[in-house]
């Protein structure tokens, strides 16, 4: 608004000072400058973000596309142009599709419980607790621990024969779970690590949103005779909808790029002997660093990018519908 105001103000000034040529020229120049100012400065103000994005986001993206069209050795560098050969090769690999499946499985096993748990924890933290700040900071502690350290600790717990979890299971007379052999069990174990790290972080986001819900809504609900549980489902959760959407989208993007936890799940770091828990990012790693074939690795990277774009679009459409519904009510 302020910018458009300034566009309109100069004309009256020019009419008053047309008498001398020099001042006209000077005026014309200052007019020009102010025109540039109006036209260019908004772009200048927002340019840092776009410059940064171009360097750290767009350039790698396009460069990866360029690499994916060549045969490219990790150390040797660029080879000959091969058009879409890398993509054809990768798409024909069962390992690629296996990695896609694993990625989605781990993503679902981690995101869904994560969001549910985070809301529950946030609701508890939102209540009148003693030593409130202590608890609130407490849930963030797992987030500060480096993912690889988390991996090492959980690896010890999830070891097939000597791990604590299996010791407990056999202690109460159950069969040990084959964490490193069974595909689903390995996904659950990895999802546990992811959840351990991210639940507290998401809980704090939910907590912030919960605190923004006007207290009089709750008062009205209490007067209407709604219990705590009813208040939670009928007031808190609907009011949190935009935040839930935000958390779900960030969890999706993060979830499809799971790497650290899965990689440190065993020593070889290739996702298991039968690739039980090899995710897409680990497959990229195997192609790029194991086989040193950067061309194919880049092709998979681009396919992963496309998958994320498609899912983000789907997310967007669904959330728009949900948001509209929320508005109508």
């Amino acid at each position, binding site marked *: 608004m302020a910018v458009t105001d300034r566009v309109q103000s100069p004309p009256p000034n020019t009419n008053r000072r047309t008498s001398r040529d020099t001042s006209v020229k000077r005026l014309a120049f200052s007019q020009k400058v102010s025109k540039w100012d109006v036209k260019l400065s908004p772009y200048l103000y927002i340019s840092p973000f776009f410059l940064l994005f171009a360097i750290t986001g767009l350039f790698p993206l396009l460069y990866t596309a360029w690499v994916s069209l060549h045969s490219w050795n*990790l*150390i*040797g560098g660029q080879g000959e142009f091969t058009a879409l050969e890398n993509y054809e090769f990768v798409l024909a*690999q*069962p*390992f690629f599709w296996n990695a896609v499946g694993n990625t989605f499985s781990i993503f679902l096993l981690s995101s869904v419980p994560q969001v549910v748990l985070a809301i529950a924890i946030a609701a508890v933290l939102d209540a009148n607790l003693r030593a409130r700040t202590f608890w609130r900071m407490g849930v963030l502690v797992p987030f500060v621990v480096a993912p690889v350290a988390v991996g090492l600790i959980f*690896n*010890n717990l999830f*070891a*097939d*024969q*000597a*791990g604590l979890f299996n010791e407990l299971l056999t202690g109460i007379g159950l069969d040990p779970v*084959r964490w*490193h*052999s069974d595909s689903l069990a390995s996904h659950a174990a990895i999802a546990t690590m992811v959840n351990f790290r991210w639940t507290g972080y998401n809980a704090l986001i939910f907590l912030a949103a919960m605190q923004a819900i006007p207290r009089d809504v709750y008062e009205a609900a209490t007067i209407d005779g709604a219990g705590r549980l009813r208040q939670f489902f009928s007031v808190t959760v609907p009011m949190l909808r935009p935040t839930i959407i935000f958390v779900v989208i960030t969890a999706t993007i993060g979830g499809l790029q799971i790497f650290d936890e899965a990689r440190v799940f*065993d*020593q*070889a*770091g*290739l996702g*298991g*002997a*039968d690739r*039980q828990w090899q995710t897409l990012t680990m497959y990229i790693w195997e192609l790029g*660093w*194991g*086989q*040193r074939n950067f061309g194919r690795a880049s092709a998979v990277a681009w396919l992963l990018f496309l998958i994320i774009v498609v899912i983000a679009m789907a997310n967007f459409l669904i959330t728009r519908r949900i948001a509209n519904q929320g508005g109508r009510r």
Partner: protein
Amino acid sequence: MHSRARITALSATAACLALALTACGSGGSDNAGVEGETGTEDVTLSVGTFNEFGYEELFEEYEQLNPNVTINHKKAATSNEARDNLTTRLAAGSGLSDIEGIEVDWLPELLEFPDQFADLSDPAVEGRWLDWKTEAATTKDGQLIGYGTDAGPQGVCYRADLFEKAGLPSDRESVAALLDGSWQDYFDAGKDFVAASDGVAWFDSAGATYQGMINQVQNAYEDNDGTVIATENPEVKDIYEQVLQASVTDGLSAHLTQWEDDWVASFQSDAFATKLCPGWMLGVIEGNAEGVEGWDIADVFPGGGGNWGGSYLTVPTQGENQAEAKKLAEWLTAPEQQIKAFESKGTFPSQVEALESEELQGQVDPFFNDAPTGQILANRATAVEVTPFKGPKYFAINDAMQQALTRVDVDETDDPASSWEKFTTAVGAL
């Protein structure tokens, strides 16, 4: 671990500085480097190693001899981790240590890029190593990219107490006599052992045993011109089937994957009775089996001699202190130092002079029931007949094979036939 090493390094330097006024400064600057002067300016050298090179005390010694040098030791837990680190930073063009330890299996892929490594050939070190050790690290143009550290002649490590319990002979000589012969003899002895002992397996892992067997094959995965023959080679398939027959059908394996948490923990429980052990494995066993008594080593190896692994020190050209780094690498791989590393962690020297030295021959390891490890491994080294050919794809194919064995032996997700199918697919995708 890392920070402790640094602290000791710092304190060593500090102590040295205090002494510098009197005597300490006389340590040699007698060695001319690849380029430029050495031994005058203060430098910090980083050295990247993995597993156990046995260099911790040697670094301190070197720092005392060369007060201007501070050594920063970066130790990776596994060789896979070290290899990832190496290739990533080679590709990035920066970030490597001044000296990088590499394993013999990576040499073929690294020799394709000789300009990434300083030429270490030097008249001073000519004839220092066993011929095959130097040849493996030399390019066609005669550039030497790495100084040999250790070699991996293998014996059989065993638990004498468990042997005794199962009614087998348990002293070193009788065990050597018992296991002498083919792999089938080794497995047959295992069947007797397993039948007589309660739930103790014969060996730790199918993958580890396979590694001992495949290292006796001249051209396992690739022809000399680099053509991949892994999936058609009957020798490979035979060994694959034989080792799985022994591991799964005959139940000789403890079903562990080497280097995994379970494998490390198994040394503390009586999980298995024998283990193929190259020299560098002695230190690993000693560390994992701390407090366990009964380990011994027999001067024998099924199917003839065998060499497993062994490492080199390289000086990447991206480093700033190549001359100083070369000097340190030269010093570390000299026979005297390698004997000390062997005393510390059992890494068996690959230097001719070291093999003949009395110190090595007289070396005794108290953990292995005072076994004359120096003499045994020196015997094992002379028994090695085959130097397997390893082409550019060796590492990747062997990884795929190890996965194939793990699927059947540890995960039980496949039978030998279906796992072989998957191996074929994996090799085809390289």
